[in-house]
């Protein structure tokens, strides 16, 4: 995706404290514009009006988890090939392989470093 600049991120995370710190990491430090959702249903709702370049999904969310949200979202027109990055606390090598098989550009371990988050996302985007 090196030719297209990464501008808008649709980000889902159920924990408000983490969303706040991610806001500084993604907007202030990364310069991205971000649409925030606190669960999978909100992601599906937001997708009706927004055109994000990238999805950033927490894996474990109440109601609908990250991978299920991705699966549902891909049924929406224009979202068939949406690039995604997962964030998860339980990072194991098999788990990474599994998410990569779902098409994830990157799997980011939680807790993340706010100073490095935007860089990791940008690198994953540029490399893809």
């Amino acid at each position: 995706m090196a030719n297209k600049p990464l501008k808008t991120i649709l980000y889902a995370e159920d924990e408000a404290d983490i969303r706040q710190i991610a806001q500084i990491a993604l907007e202030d430090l990364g310069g991205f514009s971000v649409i925030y959702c606190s669960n999978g249903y909100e992601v599906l709702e937001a997708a009706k009006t927004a055109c994000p370049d990238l999805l950033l999904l927490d894996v474990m969310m109440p109601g609908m988890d990250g991978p299920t949200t991705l699966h549902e979202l891909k049924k929406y027109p224009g979202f068939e090939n949406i690039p995604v990055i997962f964030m998860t606390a339980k990072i194991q090598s098999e788990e990474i392989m599994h998410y990569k098989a779902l098409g994830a550009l990157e799997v980011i371990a939680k807790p993340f470093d706010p100073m490095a988050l935007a860089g990791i996302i940008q690198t994953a985007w540029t490399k893809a």
Partner: protein
Amino acid sequence: MKDDIKEKLHALFVEYKKKLPDKFKNLQEQWQALTQQWDTSPLKDFHRAVHSLCGSAGTYCYPSISNAARELEVYLKPLLDNTSISLEEQQVIVQCLQAIEREIHQTINTQETFDILLSVTQRSSTAVYLLDNNESLIKNLSVILEEAGYTLRAVKDIKTLENEFLKNPPLVLIIDIDKISAPDSEYLVGLCRQQKTKPCLFCIAQNGDILTRLKSVRLGSTAFFQKPIDPLLLAKKIEQSDSIILLNPYRILIVDDSLSLAQYYSLILKEAGMIVQYITNPLLLIETMEDFQPDLLLMDIYMPQCSGLELACVLRQEPQYTSIPILFLSTEEDRVKQLSALNLGGDDFLVKPIVPHDLVNVVISRAKRAGVLSSFIKKDSLTGLLNHTNILQRLEIEIIRAERNQETLSFIMIDIDHFKQINDNYGHPVGDLVIKKLSSLLMSSFRKTDIIGRYGGEEFAVILLETTPENARKNCDDLRIKFSKFKFNIDNHSFKSTISAGIASYPDLSDLNTLISAADNALYAAKHNGRNQVINYGSI
């Protein structure tokens, strides 16, 4: 806005800390309700709340709270679909909750500093992990590394490595690429990449062919070693990986007409451990260069008085600036225009907006390469100190700076006493050893800002900035005493050596040549008076 990021983060951290007792109270209430009436749905909510605390506490740099919550989370997981709970299980959960409470209590009662913003530069570890079971390599390497202040942890399988890694991320991770599967190696590389201070990856392999080396490079390794491995060489590389920023911070000059952008880049680079100065008026470039002596220049292209490209041309016409790396910052995305900028003397092009992480990486990699090259030119090969020409150049610059800032400066010339006898009695390799010992003592005795050079043969020169003749004499005398106590052991013999030193200071003496010859005269007087002493020019 961007200048306030640090404050904003800090405010968030303070706010989060305040919320911790409520978060715990909430957990406890959920647990109380469960013990009254066990049901899988509120149990799932409880599990979720524990999971949330685990994640958020980790993000807000409270690993001990996060770990305590993680233990409970892991314990609850298999119980999620159970329709009842045993007394024993209840006890474990209560204990886990108590552990979380203890950690929260402790956190609230300690005044911590939010060191997260320094994360890029902190040396978090002296650990070197080796994923291999080659006993002789482990043995040799651990002895050598221990001497250098590192600890080697040899791990035999990836699971153990993963656990160790999460507890204490290493400075360097060494893997044998013949023995590790592709998904495992990729997983480890990912783990490295996500650390606050990214560990260096070294690869070792049986074959040194191009395909193996490519595989190593593709994993993101910074070093490759073919077996059999020379532990000394490996240890040296580890030391190099460690010393890049910590021992010698890069000096970066930013030229950008936008004050807020200049401050923003400056903040990012400073947080990565660099010494940064910025100017918003490009016409001040030459004098700032002379004054600040940067290792790298970060320059905006479009500025009102002149363009960055013109400035690069001006600099490249000056012999002393032909090799300094120049990075252009611009919104220019046209590759043809970018390339023409590089033709005019730039080294790289960074397109705005720039991700902080990328900026730091590009600056470090450029400055590092330029530093290696210029050290071959500027430094003495035996000691790594500045050579004769460069120490004099620095003295000239520092005198001008001291004059402008109305500061004092002292110049010391040091000579090893009876050095010829050492060479004659023990041979030149021993003479070299004495020189190396003195140079390492010089580096450890003076401040990082002081400038140390090998003047020639057994003679050294030191420029002490903002130092009066009296203080210079005192510092130098401490060094003299330390050196005279050091015992050199050669085979069955041991001997000691001494030094003499002469000091001259600015503004008592105000030009380069007078200062040098005064220090030389003082050194001569010290020798004449019986050696092993320090004399100020003023007291001859």
